[in-house]
């Protein structure tokens, strides 16, 4: 199920054939990974439910997340407000639902862009090898050595807290790991016969990299994507907790815990419920990615 058939036979496949083969390579790779470890399905299901709740937040949230009600300040959980209300009388449940949108948006955009840029860097380094590889990976290793939260913190502090800037900061810290992840399988794939056949047919480097190597390394990169999405959501929440999240009054989980922390002695629910929300999302993504990684990690192959 790789794209090697087209290169090996030397027939120039049509565009559609190519896309179908590439997609099949990626999908079958992922599917194999999923079935190797059933807990991945649990993680995926929980994450999809959270994503659905986030998408539907405007419809299902019982209250406006920004609507203040001074008469209902710091109320404990009740029938009217399942998760209680905060210092301004805002409904905690509605804020958590809306906060999910921020967390997921920033996480997905940051990891999406880090994945694209990191994979490109890793693929180029692995494909060309030699000095290109040495210098690129040296730079990546140096960046990798730096504590990501500190790096993110400085970048957001310099750029100012907004959704776009948080995406940039978190993506920056996640590029080096993706470069590492993409490089190793690229080196393994580039020495296989179908790439050699491609060279012999005079295919360009670009064509070989994007059409023949990329589909084969994509499953591994995507699997790591779910683990790094968990990290990204954690980092975003941490930054918001420090006070570098999307500006209030916008609801963010980290920001809610920060506000809840100020009233922790008498209103524990303010910090507790958003904490649980973060934990559920991060844990589901880790469950998903961890199961998948066992399946694609070459060191564990052949073991059950």
């Amino acid at each position: 199920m790789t794209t090697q058939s087209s290169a090996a036979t030397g027939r120039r496949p049509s565009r559609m054939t190519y896309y179908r083969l590439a997609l099949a390579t990626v999908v079958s790779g992922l599917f194999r990974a999923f079935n190797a470890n059933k807990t991945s399905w649990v993680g995926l299901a929980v994450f999809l439910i959270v994503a659905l709740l986030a998408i539907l937040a405007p419809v299902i949230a019982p209250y406006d997340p920004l609507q203040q009600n001074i008469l209902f300040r710091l109320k404990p959980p009740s029938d009217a407000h399942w998760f209680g209300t905060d210092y301004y009388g805002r409904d905690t449940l509605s804020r958590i639902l809306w906060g999910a949108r921020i967390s997921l948006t920033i996480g997905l955009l940051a990891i999406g862009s880090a994945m694209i840029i990191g994979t490109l860097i890793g693929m180029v380094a692995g494909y060309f090898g030699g000095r290109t590889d040495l210098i690129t990976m040296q730079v990546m290793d140096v960046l990798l050595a730096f504590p990501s939260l500190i790096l993110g913190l400085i970048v957001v502090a310099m750029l100012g807290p907004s959704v776009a800037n948080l995406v940039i900061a978190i993506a920056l810290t996640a590029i080096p790991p993706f470069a590492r992840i993409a490089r190793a399988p690229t080196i393994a794939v580039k020495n296989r016969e179908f790439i050699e056949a491609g060279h012999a047919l005079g295919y360009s480097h670009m064509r070989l990299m994007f059409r023949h190597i990329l589909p084969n390394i994509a499953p591994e990169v995507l699997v790591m994507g779910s683990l790094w999405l968990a990290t990204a959501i954690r980092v975003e929440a941490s930054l918001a907790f420090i006070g570098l999240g999307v500006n209030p009054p916008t609801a963010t989980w980290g920001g809610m815990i920060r506000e809840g922390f100020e009233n922790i002695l008498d209103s524990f629910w303010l910090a507790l419920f958003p904490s649980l929300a973060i934990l559920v999302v991060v844990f589901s993504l880790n469950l998903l990615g961890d199961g998948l990684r066992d399946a694609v990690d070459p060191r564990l192959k052949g073991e059950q």
Partner: protein
Amino acid sequence: MTAFVLKRLGFAAITLFAVLTIVFFIVRVLPGDPAMAILGDQASQSALEALRVRLGLDVPLYQQYFVFLGGVVVGDWGVSLVSGRPVIEEILKVLPATIELTVASLILGIVVGVPIGVWSAVRRNKLPDYLARIGSLLGLSFPAFVSAVLLLLFFSIHLRWFPVISSGQGSGLADRMRDLALPAINLGLIMAAYITRVTRSAMLEVLNQDYVRTARAKGLAFAIIVWRHCLRNALIPVVTVVGLYLGILIGNSVLTEIVFNRPGLGKLIVGALNQRDYTMLQGMMVIYTLIVVLVNLITDLTYGLIDPRIKYS
């Protein structure tokens, strides 16, 4: 041996130089004028100019770069814009507290994580293994501030076993231990989660080796094989990964120090952020870089202690 240490030192120096360069350019290349960030956008043009001169931002970039590097080398990290005291003094004042916390949690992480990891690998796909795997996965899903808040809620507010706010200036050993306990448990358990997982996978690899089968065949007690022969071989990846996780540990220590209101680098950096103390932030980046490079160096040197086969070549 000497040659090896010198070579590692050389590598460390190059890495340090590279990271400092990146730090310098990240701070400079990002859009946004530090002077404007400090004074606000209402500031007059002349005030902005004056601050730029004071920060040394009025000279060409390459000159700023050499001034910055030179300053790092001779220990002149500038003066805090808020307190007016040298940045390096402020950092050195709180550094011991952060080191105390991270070392304590690292020890806790190893003491808890290594045995669980070994146990999990030996009992692979049995109940203990599943529990250890789920438990460690849960542990590393906790953002450090979330676990810190939950620990604080339960142990300090609900059970009242520990003070809600660490004083940080307890005189006696007992006071200090009590202040240290919850923050170290918080960081230590997260570290333990990571260490459990690495130990487990490293042990699994070692347990499949031929010499383990030979040892079993000649009738050596399984406990001796595991703890004396396998663990020692499995420790190399563990040490590597612990070195790599230092970045996570440092990030988490910032969050832990904030939640428990403990003096340390974390509180210093957040204070600097809130007050837009630009020189202090730059100094913090330098100290973090130094710590990371130093720990990587120590990690490299530790290999030889664990594995005599590495002849420091």
